[in-house]
């Protein structure tokens, strides 16, 4: 299986820590993941709302570039860590392949740029790859740092499981829980894991957006979590960046680190904090949560 990395805009800007940690973790696992050359916007939100076809053409270009970069090999996965990119690419692929009239228009646009659409590029979320392409025992064996004190709330948000559920249940996904158990951490039972984070409402109708985020943070804390992990740049941003504002607005003390799942994973694999972008957090993971692990024996036992 050949993997190509599709960063999208977030992972080069607000979600820079996601890129840093994703690349560090995949490198530590010995997984080669070259960045897609000359990639463009995935066509998410704005395009999708105004002109689906343009959005499909944008994603179609990325998929066709991936095919070319993989020399037309049958087994190539385009890995998108950003949930919005993952959904945009998946949706485009489905529509292009299911509806011949869309396909011919997209192909027309691609042909003008000297490209052509091919079916066999798979769109994968990084979480899917790390949970389903790796033997979880081999991940356990690579654990270098004991984070046994961590009580993890795994947050999926909406886009990686809905409307398409390519690798997990739509309403009760469990991939991240399995991963963090493999990494020797406790996960908390938190039924809000696919509930809305507020999305773009946080920027437009902040009262509503922040309330949605606040409900998630409060319930995670009540259930004993001391860290939340996410697989989406917008979720991470909403849940982490407004905590002090929420504390005032809802007259409650809201304080819990929210990391990308790859950041906490990297910490367990013994990757330095800086390489994982952990220094970029507004609500830091406290110093001293790490203690050296003996191989992975304690986790296995």
């Amino acid at each position, binding site marked *: 299986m050949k993997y190509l990395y599709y960063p999208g805009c977030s992972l080069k800007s607000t979600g820079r820590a996601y890129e840093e940690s994703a690349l560090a973790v995949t490198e530590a696992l010995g997984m080669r993941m070259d960045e897609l050359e000359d990639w463009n916007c995935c066509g998410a939100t704005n395009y999708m709302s105004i002109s689906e076809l343009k959005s499909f053409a944008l994603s179609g270009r990325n998929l066709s570039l991936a095919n070319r970069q993989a020399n037309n090999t049958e087994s190539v996965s385009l890995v998108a860590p950003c949930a919005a990119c993952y959904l945009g690419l998946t949706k485009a692929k489905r529509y292009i392949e299911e509806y011949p009239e869309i396909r011919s228009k997209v192909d027309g646009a691609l042909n003008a740029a000297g490209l052509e659409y091919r079916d066999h590029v798979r769109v994968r979320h990084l979480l899917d790859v790390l949970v389903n392409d790796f033997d979880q025992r081999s991940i356990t064996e690579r654990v270098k740092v004991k984070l046994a004190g961590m009580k993890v709330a795994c947050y999926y948000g909406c886009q990686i499981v809905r409307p398409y559920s390519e690798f997990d*249940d739509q*309403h*009760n996904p469990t991939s991240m829980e399995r991963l963090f158990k493999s990494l020797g951490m406790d996960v908390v039972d938190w*039924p*809000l894991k696919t509930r809305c984070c507020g999305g773009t409402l946080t920027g437009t109708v902040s009262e509503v957006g922040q309330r949605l985020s606040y*409900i998630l943070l409060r*319930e995670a804390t009540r259930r004993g979590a001391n860290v939340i992990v996410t697989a989406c740049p917008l979720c991470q941003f909403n849940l982490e960046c407004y905590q002090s504002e929420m504390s005032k607005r809802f007259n409650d003390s809201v304080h819990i680190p929210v990391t990308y799942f790859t950041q906490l994973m990297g910490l367990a694999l013994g990757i330095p904090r800086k390489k994982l972008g952990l220094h970029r957090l507004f609500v830091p993971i406290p110093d001293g949560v790490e203690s050296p692990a003996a191989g992975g024996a304690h986790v296995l036992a």
Partner: protein
Amino acid sequence: MSSLDNKHNGSARVGVYICHCGINIAGKVHIQDVVDIAKKLPGVTVAKEYKFMCSDPGQEIIQEDIKKGLIDRVVVASCSPLMHEPTFRGAMAKADGNPFMFQMANIREHVSWVTKDKGLATDKSKALVAAAVARVMFHQPLTKTQVPVNPNVLIVGGGIAGIHAALTMANAGKKVYLVEREPTIGGHMAKFDKTFPTLDCSACILTPKMSAVRAHPNITLWTYSDVVGVDGFVGNFKIKVKLRPRYVIEEECVGCLECIEACIFKHGKFKDEFNVGLAKRKPIYVPFPQATPLVAVIDPETCAYFRAKCKKPCADVCEKKAIDFNQKEEIVEVDVGSIILATGFKTFDASRVARYGYGKYPNVYTSLEVERLVNAAGPTGGEVVLANGKKPKSVAIIHCVGSRDANSNKYCSKVCCMYSLKLAHLVKERTEADVYNFYIDMRTPGKGYEEFYERLLLEGINFIRGRVAEVTDWAMTPDEEEKLVIRAEDTLVGKVRRIPVDMVVLAVGMEAQPDADDVRRMFNISCSHEGWFLERHPKLAPVSTLTDGVFLAGACQGPKDIPDSVAQAGAAAAEALALIDIGHVELEPNTAFVRDEFCSGCRTCMNICPFSAIAIDTEKDTAVVNGALCKGCGTCVAACPSGALQQNLFTDEQIFHEIEGVMNYV
């Protein structure tokens, strides 16, 4: 006999009749254009159109033309032959024509109903008529053979439908073999406490019928058994039934239950299937006190004797010496003339809707589990209690779990609204809890059903219109702590509501049995895409199947309540009785035959025939088809390497000319 030897000699006179079917066909096809074309086709002496060819005056047109000697063969262009081929063949026979000198062109289902453009529809109709005319030129007069009908009947499934059909047939003096795979008959109805809308006791009305089955001299009851083989055809089926060992001799056991007392397991330890897992049973058990037959059964999966760890106190204590650990599975074979399938349904697996928390939260139950809880003979003696043994103060019933849902089953399971009302009433009566019904639409058509709904409204049951989003233990306010919270949009009020309750009941829908596909293969019938057995016609032949002699009763054909199941079982019995009363069946003459001069005796056909209808004439070393056994499946015809095998009504000549008819037109 060989159809090919006798080619049409140019004197064939074909009558073509184009049907309007009201506007069903005429609204899309220019009928007169088709008539004009038909008139010009070789061999056609008469071409006419009529509003409804299937009506009496329509049939009379054909009959008069035959009697006048204008025609000797007929093409009707109308609907599917599944619909009216027998009608027109019958009309021809009445006018002393041969009914097999007939061909139908389907210009309704294949043309007018599925074509938008009038010009294209007319063109296709012309092509199909031309094909039918070209084909019917090569038809030969054939005769049907008659075979006697065996008056015995096989009924598969011992729920209320199977029981009712069995008693109806047996009371009419017919021999009935009733096969049930569970250790007892009774089916789902035996598990219910009360039935809607009359609230009469389910066991009280069912168990007398169960006993009657057991006692009836005309009924042979095989429980803990499966049908494993079906051969033959209408009137003459050969059935193989596997009797699984229950390790208790049925004829000896008197149902004293002392063996169960004596078992080395002092308490039940294993999942009690009859109580849908809410109680535990021992390895030796009877499913419930009124089980029929009231005979113990030993489960070899859990019995310690089979792991050589038990001195069999059950056998020692049995005065009748009824326990026999050497019992082996037994195969019995019986001949029957008709079959009634009454294999029932299964309830939807609620854990498939993860957001309702079944299997995650202990106080989320399925409706079938609550049926057992409210049943006086159930695991709690009729008390509705939570997992911690306390009575619930509030209960939510969620409708349409696994029904009317694009993610599971699109259809309405038909019974859930009514049984949810019944359970709401019973739960309120037993616990005085606040009961909330969350529904999409209340569907209560049926005698006394709407009145029952009205009664529940007056009893103070709460009804909230809206599909529940989720059941969660996420508390937002102090009064939600330690509760299950129902989140739903109340679509009448237009608000999202959160309602904390102690107990949740999921009104699970009905699904086809998981092995319905295997069963339908064995009995050579069809399933609809949801998995229900397919009736011959949804309105006019609702208990027949496309396989003659095989009938359907109860929920195996689609979701049904008890009154509907019983009514359908009665109808299935009546159909089977009618078949027996006629005494014989006529077999289609669409059998295969061998042209000796082409047969090399390679035996390909003999080995491939699913009905063992082909033998070898050792003198000539050629194949011979036994017309009484041949079902006309055509397998041998396709397999024959030299074209020696042909099939009446499907000879090469007929098929090639039919194709030519289309191609010439195109």
